[in-house]
């Protein structure tokens, strides 16, 4: 088939397109009231940990850190699930993705741009929430810096949850996508129980290899949860954090690749 001779038109580099989409995603998220509601709620929870410590006998320091980190993690996950799912769904539902993809934008660039934009939002959220917790810990005259590895691991965990949110929102409606993303988060934290189940399976059958296989497939989010170790001051092996970060980001990259593949084949009816 011969259509009009192709004129050489420079297609913008992937970096330019991804940054543009990420910036737009960031703008959308920070202009969304839901994000601020979640942030206020997080700050209230972190503040509540200080109040709780005042009426608790003993281990006040642990309680503040424990509750604070838990609040940061929960609010971060809720933001990743709901904002992540709605951002892609809204693009499809409101058909803004039509005009976007009619431009020199490859579909994978759209997915990666959304992912990067959302990670920046989540990163900023974490920074704000962590600052609140650090301020409280500093106010109590304690050193807050050992909280930072836990916050970093929460960020790695959120990158996996965000990748799942993008994958599922490319596949189904936002309600189901949110449920599936949240289910991935929960099963990711319970994947260790598959190893227990495997031990109870009879030898020689299919059960054991199946349990092992599912264990490998599911995200091991428990590995990324070092809140208890940080709060209790338990020492971790030197390479634990770098390896966990590598594992987490690699896992997120694989899920993101899957999301790109799904989006690549999607028909916009």
């Amino acid at each position, binding site marked *: 088939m011969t259509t009009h001779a192709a*004129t050489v*038109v420079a*297609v*913008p580099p992937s970096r*330019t397109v991804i940054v*543009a989409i990420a910036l737009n995603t960031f*703008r*959308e998220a920070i202009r969304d009231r839901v994000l601020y509601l979640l942030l206020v709620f997080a700050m209230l929870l972190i503040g509540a940990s200080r109040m709780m410590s005042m009426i608790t006998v003993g281990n006040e320091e642990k309680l503040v850190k424990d509750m604070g980190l838990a609040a940061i993690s929960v609010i971060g996950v809720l933001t990743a699930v709901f904002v992540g799912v709605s951002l892609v769904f809204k693009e499809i539902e409101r058909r803004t993705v*039509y005009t976007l993809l009619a431009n*020199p934008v490859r579909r994978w660039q759209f997915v990666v741009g959304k992912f990067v934009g959302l990670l920046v939002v989540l990163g900023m959220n974490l920074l704000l929430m962590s600052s609140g917790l650090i301020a409280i810990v500093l106010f109590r005259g304690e050193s807050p810096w050992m909280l930072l590895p836990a916050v970093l691991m929460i960020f790695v965990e959120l990158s996996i949850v965000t990748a799942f949110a993008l994958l599922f929102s490319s596949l189904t409606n936002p309600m189901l996508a949110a449920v599936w993303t949240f289910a991935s988060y929960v099963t990711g934290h319970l994947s260790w129980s598959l190893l227990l189940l495997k031990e109870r399976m009879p030898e020689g059958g299919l059960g054991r290899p199946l349990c092992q296989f599912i264990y490998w497939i599911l995200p091991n989010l428990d590995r990324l949860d070092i809140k208890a170790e940080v709060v209790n001051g338990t020492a971790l092996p030197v390479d634990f954090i770098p390896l966990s970060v590598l594992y987490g980001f690699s896992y997120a990259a694989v899920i993101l690749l899957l999301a790109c593949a799904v989006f690549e084949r999607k028909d916009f009816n």
Partner: protein
Amino acid sequence: MVTMLEMEAKTSAPAGSTPVIELRGLSKVFRGHLGIGSTTGVDGLDLSVYRGEIFGLLGPNGAGKTTTLKLMLGLLRPDRGEVGLLGGTPRDPSARARIGYLPENPYFYDYLTAEEFLDFYGRLHGMPADERRKRVRSTLKRVGLAGREDTPLRKCSKGMTQRVGLAQAIQHDPELVILDEPMSGLDPIGRREIRNIILSLREAGKTVFFSSHILQDVEMICDRVAFLERGRLHSVGQLSKMISETVRWVEVSIRGALPEALMDSCVNQDDDKSLIRVDRMDDLPDVLASLQETGAEILSVWTRRDTLEDLFVREMDRPAGSEEVNR
């Protein structure tokens, strides 16, 4: 259908030109939930659009116009057939870099202002910041939104949103502009402005492909039109040949006595004024002669030609492929 297209290509394609858009055997079927049931979107569509023309895609609701546009843009994958777009395919970003697209009833990012929105699309085309700034201003001015840079899109009326959408489609100076119902939601002045923009695009050598329900607009600006019906190409041809040269009937308005022989042709009578319908041009001299004989004053003679609406209704009534396309 192929014969029709070949004929059309011979008679209405600009000499020596290569198509900007070429659809060959394009088919798309939408499967129902869990694969139960199916709806035909388009079926074996063949169509060529040439550089510098304004091409209108017409058809009743559900005829497959939007599906065709989506297939052309790569938003849908065809089940069969292929789409050629500016020397590439819709999957090719370098081809998409040279087109502009406005969807039907557009909804844009309502958290952005008009300037931020256009700036975002400028970024997607890799424009540097100062060029983006200049283009945003000049394009907003071109679509009649000068000074509205800071207006949030959520506060835009439907007509304003349509104009911002058109600005988005043309700000990167594309070779091919694809518009899905571009006049929708606009008042008469807005429609005229959009028509003028489309005409100015043609003057600049651009190709415009659009679908519309507003047949008057299509009639005013299109060089060629295609009629779609139930996903199939019904007919395609040069609009000037399809409608302007056919006089359907003549209306003669007179004051005074109506000759006996013309009583049956009188379609309206008001006091001493009568309106006579002459169905055949050949009969007109005899009618005028008999009116002069009776001494009636001829107030006006008005030839009624086909409008696009007449043609549209007629085309939809006849079976596809039963008539030559370029009369």
